[in-house]
C-alpha cells in the first residue's frame, strides 16, 4: 500500500480511541461538560451497558445555536482562549476534543437551548458526518444522546468487557462524581431502573452510602485539612475497615477524578504501622489546590495529573489522613449503657449482669426506617455519626473460658468475642509501660556532630520546631543551606542512627503528631514483645483469664495489639442470627 494521508474520518476515529475507550469514558466526558456548564441537575440514562444508548441531560447554560456545530468540531472549545490558559485550568474540559471524538464513533444527537434564545437547536452527527441544524422547542440546558457507540469501529467493540463490567464502571464513575459534586442532583437510570439518585443537598455521606453501603458509609472517618492553599476533604476508613486491594482509593484533584499511584502510596503511608500487612484503606479524598500547581494536560483521558510540588501534596494527604485516623482511634470511650440501651444505665447492674442483657435489644432498637429509600436512611444515620461510631472501648464482657490454650471466649451485650490472649496481653503491657515511661529528659551527645542535609520543605518544618525538639533531648542546630547538625540525641534513642532518627522525627512533625510519639511507641511495643507477654498455647487459670479481660477493658485501644493486629474477633448477634438463618439480611 502506498503511503497516503488518512481520511478525516479514520483520523478522527484514531484520535477518539484515546479519549473514549469505553462507555464509561463517554459518560465521563459528557458529565464533565454538564458540570462545566454549571448544571445543578444531571440525568444519565444508559441502555445495554451504554452500547445502545448513553444520554446525559443537564440544566446548564446550553450552547448558542450558532455554536452548536462548532461544539462537535475537533479542537473547538469555549474554555481556553490562549495557550497561557493551559497552565491554570479551572474547567474540567479544555481540549475541545470530547464531543468531536464521541460523534466520530457513534450516532450523536445534541439538543440545547441557552437562556437568551427563544427556541432550542438540535444537531445529529452520524459517525462524524454532521446533518442540518434543526430548531425546536426545548428547555434551557443540553442533552447529548449517544447511540450505537463504536458500531462503526468493530475492533473497539471487541475490546469491551462484559456488559456487567461496563455497567459497573459507569455506576462507579457516576457515583464518584455525585460524591465530588454533592450539590448537584444526579440521577442514573440503567435499562429503565433508577440506580442512583442524589438529593443535591451537599451531603456527601449520603452518597457514600450508595457507593459502599450504609454500614461502611457510617463508619468512614471524615478528613478535613486546610493549610491556606491546599484543602483536602473527604472520608477515609477507620482501622477496622480495610480492603485487600488498593482499588478503593479515590482521589479528586480540583474536581477531577484522577488515578495516581503516588497518591495511593501517600495514603497507604498514612496508615503505616496501623494496618495488617496486605490490607488497604478505603478513601475518597477531594483535594483542592491552586490551578497553577497542577498540570492536567498529561493524559489523553485526563485520568492523570502532574503536580508542581508533589512532595507537598503527598505530605498534605498523609497528614490529613493520619490525623483523621488518629483522632478516631482510640475512639473516645462511649459508656456501654449509651450504646446498648437503657437497662444497664438505669439500674447500674454489675458487669456480668449487664453482659447478660437480652441480645434482642441490639437489633430491635437498632436501625429503623422501613419504607424509606436506602439513601434517606443513610442520611439519617449520617446525622448521628458521632454517636454511633464503633466504640474503641469494649462493652463489659462476661468470661466464658479459654479455648485451645490460646484464645479467650467472652460474651458481650452485642454478641460473642474471641480474644487472642497474646495480642491482648501485649496491648495491656504496652499501655502500662506507656504510662510509666520516664519523662526525664536525658541527652546523649555525640562524639562528633552528624550533618544532615534536608529537602527545603523539611528544613523549614524542622527550623520551626527546633526548640520543641531540643527540649526533648535533641541538640540540633542549623548549619546553613538546608543542612542541620545533630550534636546529641535523646538518651533512649542513642542506639539509633542520628540521621535516621532525625528524619523520622521530621516526618512526625510534618504529620502534625507530637514528635517522637511514633518512635517511642515502636520502642515500647518491641519491648513488650520481648517481655513476657503471655504466649499462645499457655493454659491460664480462670483468675488469670478474668484479670486479662478486665485489664483489657481498661485499655484505651483494646481492639488492636501495639503492632496493629487485632486482639479480638467480634461475632455480632446480627451475624450469628444471619448465619443460622434466623433472620434475612437487612
Amino acid at each position, binding site marked *: 500500500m502506498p503511503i497516503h494521508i488518512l481520511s478525516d474520518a479514520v483520523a478522527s476515529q484514531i484520535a477518539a480511541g484515546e479519549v473514549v475507550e469505553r462507555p464509561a469514558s463517554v459518560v465521563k466526558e459528557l458529565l464533565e461538560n454538564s458540570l462545566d456548564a454549571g448544571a445543578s441537575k444531571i440525568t444519565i440514562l444508559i441502555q445495554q451497558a451504554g452500547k445502545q444508548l448513553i444520554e446525559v441531560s443537564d440544566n446548564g447554560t446550553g450552547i448558542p445555536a450558532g455554536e452548536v456545530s462548532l461544539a462537535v468540531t475537533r479542537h473547538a472549545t469555549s474554555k481556553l482562549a490562549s495557550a497561557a490558559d493551559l497552565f491554570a485550568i479551572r474547567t474540567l474540559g479544555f481540549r475541545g476534543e470530547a464531543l468531536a471524538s464521541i460523534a466520530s464513533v457513534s450516532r450523536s444527537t445534541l439538543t440545547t437551548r441557552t437562556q437568551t434564545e427563544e427556541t432550542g437547536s438540535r444537531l445529529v452527527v452520524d459517525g462524524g458526518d454532521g446533518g442540518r441544524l434543526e430548531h425546536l422547542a426545548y428547555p434551557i440546558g443540553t442533552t447529548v444522546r449517544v447511540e450505537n457507540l463504536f458500531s462503526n469501529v468493530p475492533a473497539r467493540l471487541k475490546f469491551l468487557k462484559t456488559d456487567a463490567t461496563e455497567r459497573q464502571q459507569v455506576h462507579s464513575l457516576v457515583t464518584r462524581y455525585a460524591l465530588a459534586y454533592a450539590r448537584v442532583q444526579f440521577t442514573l437510570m440503567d435499562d429503565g431502573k433508577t440506580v442512583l439518585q442524589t438529593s443535591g443537598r451537599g451531603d456527601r455521606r449520603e452518597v457514600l452510602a450508595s457507593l459502599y453501603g450504609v454500614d461502611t458509609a457510617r463508619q468512614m472517618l471524615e478528613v478535613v485539612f486546610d493549610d491556606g492553599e491546599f484543602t483536602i476533604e473527604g472520608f477515609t476508613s477507620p482501622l477496622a475497615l480495610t480492603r485487600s486491594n488498593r482499588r478503593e482509593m479515590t482521589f479528586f484533584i480540583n474536581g477531577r477524578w484522577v488515578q495516581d499511584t503516588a497518591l495511593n502510596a501517600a495514603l497507604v503511608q498514612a496508615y503505616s504501622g496501623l494496618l495488617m500487612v496486605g490490607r488497604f484503606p478505603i478513601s475518597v479524598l477531594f483535594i483542592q489546590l491552586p490551578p497553577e500547581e497542577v498540570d492536567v494536560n498529561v493524559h489523553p483521558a485526563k485520568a492523570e495529573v502532574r503536580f508542581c510540588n508533589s512532595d507537598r501534596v503527598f505530605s498534605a494527604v498523609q497528614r490529613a489522613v493520619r490525623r483523621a485516623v488518629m483522632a478516631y482511634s482510640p475512639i473516645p470511650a462511649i459508656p456501654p449503657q449509651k450504646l446498648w440501651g437503657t437497662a444497664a444505665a438505669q439500674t447500674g447492674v454489675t458487669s456480668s449482669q449487664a453482659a447478660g442483657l437480652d441480645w434482642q435489644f441490639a437489633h430491635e432498637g437498632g436501625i429503623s426506617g422501613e419504607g424509606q429509600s436506602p439513601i434517606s436512611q443513610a442520611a439519617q444515620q449520617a446525622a448521628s455519626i458521632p454517636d454511633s461510631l464503633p466504640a474503641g472501648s469494649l462493652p463489659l464482657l462476661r468470661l466464658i473460658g479459654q479455648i485451645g490454650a490460646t484464645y479467650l471466649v467472652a460474651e458481650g451485650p452485642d454478641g460473642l468475642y474471641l480474644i487472642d490472649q497474646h495480642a491482648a496481653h501485649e496491648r495491656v503491657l504496652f499501655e502500662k509501660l506507656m504510662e*510509666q*515511661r*520516664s*519523662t*526525664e*529528659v*536525658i*541527652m*546523649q*551527645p*555525640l*562524639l*562528633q556532630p*552528624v550533618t544532615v542535609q534536608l529537602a527545603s520543605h523539611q528544613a523549614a518544618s524542622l527550623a520551626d520546631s527546633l526548640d520543641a525538639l531540643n*527540649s526533648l*533531648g535533641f541538640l540540633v542546630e542549623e548549619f546553613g543551606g538546608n543542612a542541620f547538625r545533630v550534636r*546529641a540525641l535523646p*538518651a*533512649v534513642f*542513642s*542506639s*539509633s*542512627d*542520628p*540521621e*535516621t532518627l532525625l528524619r523520622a522525627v521530621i516526618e512526625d512533625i510534618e504529620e502534625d503528631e507530637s514528635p517522637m510519639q511514633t518512635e517511642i511507641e515502636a520502642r515500647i511495643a518491641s519491648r513488650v514483645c520481648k517481655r513476657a507477654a503471655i504466649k499462645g498455647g499457655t493454659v491460664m487459670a480462670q483468675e488469670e483469664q478474668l484479670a486479662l479481660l478486665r485489664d483489657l477493658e481498661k485499655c484505651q485501644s483494646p481492639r488492636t495489639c501495639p503492632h496493629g493486629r487485632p486482639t479480638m474477633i467480634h461475632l455480632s448477634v446480627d451475624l450469628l442470627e444471619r448465619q443460622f438463618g434466623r433472620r434475612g439480611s437487612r
Partner: protein
Amino acid sequence: MRLSIVNSLDSKILIFQGVIYFNFESILSIIIRQQFPPERSPTVKVTVSQQQLAHGLSLVSRAVAPRSTLPVLANILVATDEGRVRLSATNLELGISCWIGGQIAEEGAITVPARTLSDLVNTLPNDPVLLELNPKNQVLNVRCGTSITDIKGIDAQEYPPIPVPDLADGLELNVSDFKEMIQQVVFAVSTDEARPVLQGVQMSVNGTFITMAATDGYRVSVRKAELEHPAASPFSIIIPARALSELARIASDGDQKIVMVTPPGRGQVLFHLRDAELVSSLIEGNFPPYDKIIPTSFKTKTILSTAEFLKSCRQAEIIARDGNNIVRLDIQPAVEGAPGVVEISAQSEETGFSEIKLAANVEGPGLLIAFNVRFLREVLDVMKSPNIVLQTNANNTPGLLQQTGDDSFIHVIMPMHLG
C-alpha cells in the same frame, strides 16, 4: 566475573556482565554452572572422628545462609583436600572453612544441608563416622556405630568457588594478641545498619605498627600493637565486626599464628589458621577520623579497681536498664585524710534507685559526670589490668579510660547530659 545484586522496589535484580536479570536465583546457578562445567563427580569415601566432625561443623555453621534464595548456601561443603577433610560454608559475605583429619578412601566433594548434618552428627556416639557419597543421586551416606543415614545433597559443582589465597606476602599475627585486640574494640561498633562503616572495625597497618579502632558515634575504642614482621606496604581496611568476632571464636590459642591476606582488588580479607580459614568481604567507605576527638589533656585523673568498678556498674545497670541507662559518677578527691571516693548511682522511674561508694585515687578537682552504664560495663569487661584510669575534664566533654601503666588501649566515651 562481575556480579552485582541490586535491591529494586520489590524484586531483586541481578546485573551480570551488563545484562539485567530478574529471576536471579536460577540465573546465578546457571552462571555458576557455566563457569564450572560439571565433570563426572567423583565419589567421596572418608572416615572421620565424630568429635572432630561435630566441632568442625559448629565452626563453619556460623557462615551458613539458611534463608538464602540460593539453596546451595544453606549447605555445607564436605570435600577431601590434600589428605584432610574440608568443611566450608559461606553466605557470600562471610565464608568459613575448616579441615579435620580422616582416613580418605576416595576423593571427592558434596554439599549437604547444614542443619541436617550438624543435628545428626551431634546425636551420634563418639565413634568413627563413615561418610560416603553416592555420585549417581548425590546422596551422602553417614554411618556411625549402628546408625545409617542418607542425606540428600546438592552437587558440589554448584557451590560458590572458594578463593585459594597466596599466603606468601601475608601478614603474620600472633593469635592470642590478635584475639585480645579484637575483643577490646569489637563491642564498640554500631548495631545500626544505617551506617555500614560503623559496623566495622578499622585496621591500619604501617610498618610494624597495627591499630584497630571501632566507634558507634558515642564512644571509640582504639587498640595498638606491634608486629613481629613489618608489612610490605601500609594499608587501612574496614573489616565487618561480625567477621572478627567469628575469627576470635574459631582461632584457638594452639594455632599460634594467623596469616592475613588482602588479595588486591577483591574487596576481601582472608585469615588463614592452621586448621581453619575465614574470608570476609570488606566494608567500603571512610572511617570517621577519630584521632581529633581524643582529648590530650585532662583535669581530673581517677584510679579505680577494675573489678570493683565493673561490679558497681553491673549493679547500677540493673536499675538503669529500664530507664535511660544513665549512671552518675560523683568523683570526690581526698579531703584531709579521708581518701578519694567515687559515688556511683542510678535511678529509674520504673525500677528504683541504687548507690554504691568506691574508694578511689583522685587527682584534680571533683566532678559529677553521667555515662551510659552499658558503655562503661562493656569497656570494663575487656580491661585486663587490676586498676583502671578514668580521665575527665568536664561533664560535657569526653572521658577517657585506660589500663594503668599502658598506652596501647584507650577508650573514649561521650558523657550523657541531664536536660
